[in-house]
């Protein structure tokens, strides 16, 4: 079912884009954007994501997490589009970075996570009069560092794990509201990026469901 939905979506995108070449006025547009927002790493990306188990495994030993799984990434992005009348297709690069410290209810154990995602993929646009909705999908890589300090009774175990997620997958949709070169961008993004933490041999989601708002500059 999942693969069928993706196949149909991808086919439709290809066909829409293909037939759009019948329109005219070609132009290339470049955008730089800075975005900020909330990403819920505990809420897996629909269809492509799955629930992780690294933190929940630690919860069974050290008590529930204090706080939630939300992180606040900063996102820098660069996109270019080749327009064909009201529709456009293009390619984009994004750098996501965030840090988060988790603590537990039952003891002073803590886990520090820092992650940097370098994502890239295809984007598709509709150029309306006042707003430009878009959707996109892609891959890239996530680099992460997980630093553990886990307390069990009177002993403390330490662990520092580096690693990379080689083939994350993301899809997103959103809108650009142009205001003379500068503009506002709103993005809803879903990222599947499971990092295997070798200390527990369990996956930790570095992606999840994210909502970003920011400014862009186009030329």
């Amino acid at each position, binding site marked *: 079912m999942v693969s069928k939905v993706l196949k149909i979506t991808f086919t439709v995108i290809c066909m829409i884009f293909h037939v759009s070449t019948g329109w005219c006025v070609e132009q*290339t547009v470049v955008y730089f954007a800075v975005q900020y927002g909330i990403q819920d790493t505990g809420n897996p990306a629909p269809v492509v994501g799955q629930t992780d188990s690294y933190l929940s495994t630690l919860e069974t030993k050290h008590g529930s997490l204090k706080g939630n799984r939300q992180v606040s990434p900063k996102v820098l992005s660069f996109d270019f589009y080749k327009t064909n009348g009201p529709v456009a297709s293009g390619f984009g690069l994004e750098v996501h970075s965030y840090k988060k410290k988790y603590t537990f209810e039952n003891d002073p154990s803590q886990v520090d996570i820092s992650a940097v995602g370098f994502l890239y993929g295809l984007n598709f646009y509709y150029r309306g009069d006042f707003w430009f909705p878009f959707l996109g999908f892609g891959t890239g890589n996530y680099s992460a560092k997980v630093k553990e300090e886990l307390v069990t009774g009177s002993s*403390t175990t330490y662990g520092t794990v580096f690693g*990379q997620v080689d083939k994350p997958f993301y899809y997103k949709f959103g809108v650009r509201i142009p205001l003379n070169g500068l503009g506002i961008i709103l993005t809803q993004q879903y990222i599947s990026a499971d990092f295997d933490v070798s200390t527990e041999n369990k996956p930790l989601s570095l992606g999840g469901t994210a909502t970003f708002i920011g400014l862009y500059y186009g030329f």
Partner: protein
Amino acid sequence: MQIELIYCDKFLHKLKGITLGFIFTVVVAKIQGYPRYLCFLFIYMKIKGLLKLLSAFIISIAWNNSAQAGSINSGLGPLEIRPQFIVSQPFLAMTPENSSTLKGGESKLSVGIEIANTFVNTQGPTEQITKKEVARGLTKEDFYDKNGDAGKGYSLYLDAETKRKNLKYNYGISDSLEFKLEIPFLSFDGGFMDSSIESVHSLIGISNFKQGGAYRALSERNKYDYYVVKDGEFVYASNQIIYNVRGEPSMGLKWNLSEGGNVMPAVTLKLSYKFANSDRSGEQKLVRSGGVDWGHYLILSKGFDKWIVYFGDGKTRIGENLGFASSMSHQFMSLEYRIEEEVSFVFQSVSQSSIFQETAASPRSTSGENQEQRNSNLSVSTSVSAFGYKFVSGPIFWETGFVQDYNNFGNETDFVLFWEMGVHW
């Protein structure tokens, strides 16, 4: 606009546990009254039950006036630079390449040099290896944990500049099939870049006494030392500079399956094969594996006017792994901006799995950070970014640029400069 599905069929094929799926679709679209017949062949992989859309590749065959004329899906191509980490130098490594091939009967001959500065000191955090220990000569005990345990996994002290000189010849067998032969010559020495790299670190606020600066300040500049320890025993222990030692030659075939169109990307399959030279006496053991390696890259490229995007995904199988990884996976993404027809700037990102295989080194300890814990992190995948310039003038072509490791996991070069020049006829 009317779109009509004429025919659609799918079939699956299982290959070594990976399910390959094929969907064949024919549609007719009427645009402004003119019918356009389109034929798609989707090929996808099911990995662990999940469809990885971007690991799929798509071949489109279109006929009639399917809006393909005039599209360009390849330019001067990605930066053709292989991983330069000193430990992986004896093995085959795949280079990103253009999706287009030489035309039948055409040839290219080039020379190039890749200068890579690598500095890794897994004993840096405990200051077990500093200028003093290097001056007296390193022993395997220097790589043990502070409490004297040999520890599991790989420990490293790499302070080297590698210079890989390549002689390359490419020949167009047909308009879509290209043959390549490459012979490398390798030098390992102390180089000249340490001082500049440390200055750049200081300039951007990275301490050369800490992990971010790879503990460079603990060592002399521009010295050559190459020590790799696995499970407490030396794999390599060398501080004798080597010059222009011939590595093992490799050959390759590149097949452009489709040039793509306005929608579909160009698709190319690249295969490489490294010959084995069993003479590994003396210094040759540092640059030859003595085994046959082979690898592949599947390359997609898509043009958006002056911008061209290239993707590659592949794997290298190592025949004689000498205690390192027996295979390496790699991906690249390359973004080319064509300033003019003959001049391009290229940004590139390459990810690859580690040359260090997973070991029994424990990532946890009860006494703070320890040696084994640090060793365990050497087996993770890593990435580098590259920036370069490509230029063509008549029969002469030129490529230059640099590569920077941004993960700092200790299993990649710090900084690479590369340059290639050749003739095309």
